[in-house]
């Protein structure tokens, strides 16, 4: 089932390589105690990685806010094989010298072009991952980091921050600042079930590398599509979206370029099939 998903994303047809042994480390013994049960279940579970580039950990925090399903997801549905925050495994870190193969890699944050390690980790992740998901608006559009311009201690040269799709092919995008816990939960379930219909909008958003309140002006109002429903105002995390004569009017000094307003707009795309399925209407 997961192979089907991988193929659909243009990933490799080959069976995932057997996972390399995790380097000997203090935690190894603790892990070993549960190992037999783990190994059996592991083959069916997607191997998830989480990479933290120039982000704020808000998206990873958001993932953990799925309190009622989190333990089930982490124990029964996925294996987290790489990451700094949720597990203690990352390259050049203490416990893993090499990045493992991953079925899905969630990448939070934009990438700083002047930070050699970030660029390397991103490119390496593309090689090792079936799917790359831009996780949160910094990864999707650059969000806050759009405004970075260097000149600060102790790395004044760290000035250029790009959405990850500028450097690697991204398979799915989950915008939001942060991406909402419910959205993460629904996506994880869809990934585990191979529900491509649900993932399609996120896949189509993957190539996006720009986003701001201007999107509703450019792609909705100026196309004669706005109906003044107010969804974009609901979506905006900074309340930058006001209304004038029934039309959204973005305060661009408040807008953080997360792109959520346009993604939420019912006149950008409408998931008719899913709505009918969920409501029975």
């Amino acid at each position, binding site marked *: 089932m997961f192979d089907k998903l991988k193929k659909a994303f243009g990933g490799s047809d080959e069976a995932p390589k057997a996972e390399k042994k995790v380097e000997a480390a203090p935690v190894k013994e603790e892990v070993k105690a549960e190992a037999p049960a783990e190994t059996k279940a592991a083959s069916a579970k997607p191997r998830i990685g989480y990479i933290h580039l120039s982000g704020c950990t808000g998206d990873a925090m*958001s993932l953990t*806010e799925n309190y009622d399903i989190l333990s089930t997801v982490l124990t029964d549905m996925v294996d987290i094989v790489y990451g700094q925050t949720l597990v203690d495994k990352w390259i050049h870190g203490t416990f893993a010298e090499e990045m493992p193969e991953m079925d899905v890699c969630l990448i939070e944050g934009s990438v700083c072009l002047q930070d050699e390690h970030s660029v390397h980790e991103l490119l390496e992740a593309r090689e090792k991952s079936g799917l790359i998901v831009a996780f949160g608006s910094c990864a999707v559009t650059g969000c806050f980091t759009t405004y970075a311009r260097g000149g600060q201690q102790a790395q004044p040269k760290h000035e250029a921050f790009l959405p990850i799709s500028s450097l690697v092919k991204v398979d799915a995008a989950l*915008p*939001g600042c*942060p*991406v*909402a*816990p*419910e*959205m993460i939960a*629904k996506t994880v379930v869809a990934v585990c079930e191979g529900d491509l*219909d649900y993932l*399609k*909008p996120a896949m*189509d958003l993957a190539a996006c590398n720009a986003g701001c309140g201007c999107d509703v002006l450019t*792609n909705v109002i100026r*196309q*004669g*599509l*706005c*109906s*003044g*429903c*107010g*969804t*974009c*105002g*609901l*979506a905006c*995390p900074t*309340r930058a*979206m006001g*209304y004038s*004569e*029934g*039309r*959204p009017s973005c305060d661009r000094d408040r807008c953080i370029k997360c792109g*959520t307003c346009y*993604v*939420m*707009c*019912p*006149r*950008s*795309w*409408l*998931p*008719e*099939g*899913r*709505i009918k399925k*969920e*409501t*029975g*209407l």
Partner: protein
Amino acid sequence: MPLGTYKEALSARSTEQKILDVSQDGGIVSSLLCYALDEGIIEGAVVAGTPDEDWRPIPTVVTSSDEVIAAAGTKYSMSPTLSALKEATRQYGLEKVGVVATPCQVQGLRKAKAYPFTRFVADKVNLIIGIYCMENFPMASLDTFATAKLGFDSLTDASKMDIGKGKFWLTKDGEDKGLAIKETHGYEQAGCNVCQDYVAEWADVSTGSVGSPDGWSTVLTRTDAGESVFKAAVDAGLIETKPMDDVKPGLPLLEKLAKGKKDKNTAERERRAKMGVRIPAIY
């Protein structure tokens, strides 16, 4: 199915005089909201109010029957109502929220539930009351109808605004003045021209005037949630009903108008697509 999926169609009206005094038609929206608030089914609702009574709709959070009644009546201009959901769930801290929504707003809400890109908002909406909507007008269009076309000094002179029997009506000093609907064409907002939903097909319960006699509303119950609230309000004696077959003009007119809107605006979508301008992507 031009009316979407529904369980039951009924003609209905409120039994409460204080609601009928201010309601656009049968007072169904107000009755359902008051009932749901009193019973704790919802803790509040987002609606289109007119705090300045100048016909300009302002998204408003209501948490009591008095506030519901103060916001009653149709305003024929755009209310970005869904933007007030943020206020309802954050400032007011409401966990169970009702929404009175036009078809496009219902679409926005259902999309927000299916793809919740904004945290902890859409899941708190547990009652969507949809209102029928053929099209909507910018405030400047309403000003034009009142002053240039009907000879009012100002739109604010009107005490009631209605669309029915082929006319756009404004009432002043108890006298109704009507403008042929044909005269209003070209004044609706452009976004309405691609809308294919007349009867809020994805609401929990939809209501509007067409199909029922004056002072009554045509109600379509759609989801289990919508059906149960409506039936409970009827059982509580707040709403009286008649079978749809017993009233004129009945469902055939509603179906005809719904299909007319679908056909016309589907053609407009095709025309725009052919020109190469953007239309909403459907998944």
